[in-house]
């Protein structure tokens, strides 16, 4: 019993200790961001490797998720003769929830893990301390561009995910199952509110972008500089970023749509 309490206490302390270090780290990153905008090429290169190279997985997943939504929705709604609402169902599920959340989860696995591994390996091979000795701040040169690149990429990817998903739903519902194309689109336009739905979805994806990228760069920078340390940090990135995404999603949803 005492052991249990002890290890519980230890875990709690180490959790807050890491959180503290991560916050100080975030402060250091933020301090370098103004000067970063003088060198946009660094950010653009990161948007390419973090965002553009994640496009294929986002496109494919978005398409399939949209089709599944259409199919599941159709099977339920057809009993009530309400299949013309399918456009709205697909669009709202994607824009409010699945777009930001699934994109963030995929992003954590595809780009977050890569960020952690890259920064961790640079640390393990002394590239970061080499930079320090050349009077180049690695947080500014290596971490901050990746952080900003991730924050810009995730909301864009989430938007693309939702758009492709809506198109996937259209393909299945209209082209395969024969629902009227006009009602698919017009119901969607009528029932989707710009501020209430789309804006909230965008805010979610921005929050996820900040948190997931922050976790990824922190784990990389903070890892134990050995092969094992890097591999553990990579795993932690995926696990923590996914949990953070789901937890925050609940919180944000409660705040935005909860009427609590």
């Amino acid at each position, binding site marked *: 019993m005492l052991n249990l309490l002890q290890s519980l206490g230890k875990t709690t302390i180490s959790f807050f200790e890491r959180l503290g270090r991560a916050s100080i780290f975030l402060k250091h990153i933020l301090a370098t961001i103004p000067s970063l905008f003088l060198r946009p090429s660094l950010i653009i290169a990161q948007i390419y490797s973090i965002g553009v190279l994640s496009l294929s997985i986002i496109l494919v997943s978005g398409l399939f998720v949209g089709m599944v939504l259409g199919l599941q929705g159709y099977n339920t709604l057809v009993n009530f003769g309400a299949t013309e609402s399918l456009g709205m169902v697909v669009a709202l599920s994607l824009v409010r929830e699945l777009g930001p959340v699934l994109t963030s989860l995929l992003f954590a696995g595809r780009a977050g893990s890569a960020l952690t591994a890259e920064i961790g390996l*640079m640390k393990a*091979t002394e590239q970061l*301390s*080499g*930079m*320090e*000795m*050349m*009077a*180049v701040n690695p947080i500014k040169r290596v971490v901050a561009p990746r952080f900003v690149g991730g924050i810009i990429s995730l909301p864009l990817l989430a938007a693309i995910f939702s758009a492709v998903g809506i198109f996937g739903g259209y393909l299945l519902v209209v082209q395969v199952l024969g629902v009227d194309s006009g009602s698919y689109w017009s119901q969607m336009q009528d029932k989707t509110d710009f501020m209430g739905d789309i804006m909230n979805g965008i805010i979610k994806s921005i929050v996820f972008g900040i948190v997931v990228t922050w976790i990824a760069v922190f784990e990389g920078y903070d890892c134990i500089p050995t092969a094992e340390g890097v591999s553990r940090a990579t795993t932690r990135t995926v696990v923590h970023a996914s949990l953070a995404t789901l937890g925050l999603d609940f919180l944000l949803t409660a705040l935005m749509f909860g009427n609590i």
Partner: protein
Amino acid sequence: MNDTFIKIRDVRFSRGDRWIFDGVNIDIPRGKIVAIMGPSGTGKTTLLRLIGGQLKPHAGTVEVDGKNIASLSTHDLYKVRKKMGMLFQSGALLTDINVFENVAFPLREHTKLPEALIHHLVLMKLQAVGLRGAKYLMPSELSGGMARRVALARALVFDPVMIMYDEPFTGQDPISMGVLVHLIRSINDALGLTSIIVSHDVQETAQIADLIYVISNGKVVSHGTPDEMKNSESAWVKQFINGESDGPVPFHYPAPDYKQELLGEVAC
């Protein structure tokens, strides 16, 4: 200007509960080449990191050019580092860019020189280390010795006033070793640099060093010019310079008695 460029006073530094340095005093005169020698694991790399400000001593001071490194703000520390070149034991090249870009890196980060000038400066340094032909190779395509020579070119490209070499000769064949030894001496004299060389290659280092410090067990065991060291009476220095296996120099990391441990009489 006849002064001490780096002044290390009573420095103590520990890793865990082991004192790596326990009261070390070193003076490095401006414009000279100073060799730091000592058994593997005594903290030579650690010493360079203390001078570069990547580690802070737990007691004592490290002064570079009159400035106490540990008390500088980050901004000032970076200003001092711009004047330091460091050759890492592992090379520490950036693996996502090629040899040319690696050498150009400090120039691109700190200056707005025109491309043509950068091109010239980089090729000049690569020529000096004999790797101009390798400029488009990636670091992963280099051998260990080549990578260290590229790192040397990079350390020189920003024209530092002081340069620290961590084992520059390891992994070099006799010919490139000879070239490097000569290069280090001639750069030092031509540019008026202050150089610190950490090396195990006693003969080569003794050829070019003005002063040798030997450290072991957290202390400076002996120091002097190469000639003084060769004629030293100390059994310790004799053994180290001649590389004999018997003598006072410890080869083992501190450990309990071997026989007792084999017999299981040591509490782990």
